């Protein structure tokens, strides 16, 4: 199973969620995508997005203003 890392720091809406969306489309079920974001609105967005798209939010942490989410496809 592949792992991908996206640096979406500095991107504002809709940048981070679009990058994740694009990466998840090409990923295989079970693949893990890690994304780093500096847009705080992303925290709420990613939770809702994973819930609605049935992807798994493995972790969501905020450290020194950087939000890191790990999402597993499927």
């Amino acid at each position: 199973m592949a792992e991908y890392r996206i640096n979406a720091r500095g991107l504002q809406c809709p940048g981070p969620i679009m990058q994740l969306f694009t990466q998840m489309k090409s990923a295989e079920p079970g693949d893990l995508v890690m994304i780093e974001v500096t847009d705080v609105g992303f925290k709420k967005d990613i939770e809702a997005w994973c819930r609605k798209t049935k992807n798994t939010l493995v972790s969501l942490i905020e450290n020194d203003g950087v939000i890191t989410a790990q999402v597993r496809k499927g």
Partner: protein
Amino acid sequence: MRLIILGGVAAGTKAAARARREYPDAEVMILTQDDYVAYAGCGLPYYVGGIISEAQELIVRTPDEFKHENGIDVRTRCQATAIDPSAREVRARDLDTGIEQTYGYDKLILATGALPVLPAIDGIHLKRVATVRGLTDAKKIRVLVDSGKLRHAVVVGGGFIGLEMAENLAHRGLQVSVVEMRDAILPGFDPEIAALAKKALEEHGVGIYTGETVQRVLGNASGEATGVVTTERTLDADLVILSAGIKPNTAIAAAAGVETDARGMILVDEYLRTNLPDIFAVGDCASVRHQMTDLDVYSPMGSTANKTGRLVVANLIEPRETFAGVLGTTIVRLFDVSAARTGLSEEEARAAGHDVETVLVPTPDRAHYYPGNKPIITKLIADRATHRILGAQVFGEGVVDKPIDTLAMGIALGMTAEQLSGMDLAYTPPFASALNSSIVAANVLLNKLDGKLRGVSPCALELDNPNQQLLDVRTEPEYLIAAIPNSINIPLPELRERIDELDPEKSTVVVCKVGRRAYGAALLLRRLGFRDVKILDGGMTAWPYETV
């Protein structure tokens, strides 16, 4: 000179301390019915919340310190009962001994503060029903909360003190509900900001019930409060906080012929003089001039009390310094969001006869790429004819005090939208964006004033108007996360090719996350002949209602 000051919290003690410095030979006396003087009343909710660990941290100076270090004669638990302006005397009763005494004065400063407005309902005298006016009140509440036995609290009144109490009681682990009789919490703020504050409080588990009146407090056999009945529901309550507003404490002043208005505030001139010779009034018992309307208003704020308490001393012998008045600048923190305002609200601006334009502009509070940036929303209220900024409100998780203070300064000096847009403000990524949040808001305002852009407030948006289409131009994933019910999603890059899905004859409201893409879409739709195009002010970021 013998100076008597009635009241010894903020304004009274400020006046006493300065009088001591300015008139070293004067006799200065403070009479107060309170147990304490010179305490930080605004800190009381945080003392209940435990952020301030002990009550003594809120006491700036004790009566003994005043006496010994400043030579000010402080009489606590000494309640003034009458003023005789012709004899220049105050009668006061010692609350412990019951003995009444007469004190002669040359100058009298009224700093009697305010009293809580108690709703006329059954049960307010039960145990565990409390107001939050003084340190004595707060200590009582703190003891109850510290007992660990309380589970539910109801706060009556959604003003600043009520909401700060709600936050602090929630921090202490209580399930808190706020009942507000008006349609919105946060008096003085416009509905867009009040609705966002409500949403934020609800996200932290605080129940907010607006448009409901408390009818009675329920109690048990021990005479303790157990619940609150409103016009809509019954709420459990081991603790009931009454914070449904305050009124000036001016009965003895009024009885002595000091002029008050219908609500009881003492009317003072710009030198803080009352209508009676040698009697002055400052702080929460007195009127202040509103700088935008020139009207006498009631603005019971700690900041105003400290300023007027200090200033009045200059005018005791002859009128020397004038008080500039207030802009209505206030700020409150509620969990992880803050709300601040200055100048006129939209409603106040309309009431004052202005033809009003407003904007609601979300931005980050510093460079969007700098880690730790947080969102804020700026509302500006301006006069369409003169472009003068009349008021501002800033809300969000990010820094709001800096922009509101900058805006207050500009508004006080008559700043226009053009001047705000060109303001030279501090910039480097950890502190601000290259285009400062207030400047971005000014630019959106200028676009509106120039007619390039029309907006609709989230509070005015009709969701079931058959002659209106709500167009969401965000990307599909964003739309999927949260969208306004009945909106149509056409991402901005696809708008031109999918234009047939829309009806140019209907009025169109365009929404995106903050408003930037909606503005682009609105310009395109107008070029394509759409009849009536508006954007949703503040976009999804400022949308305080339900999403799907």
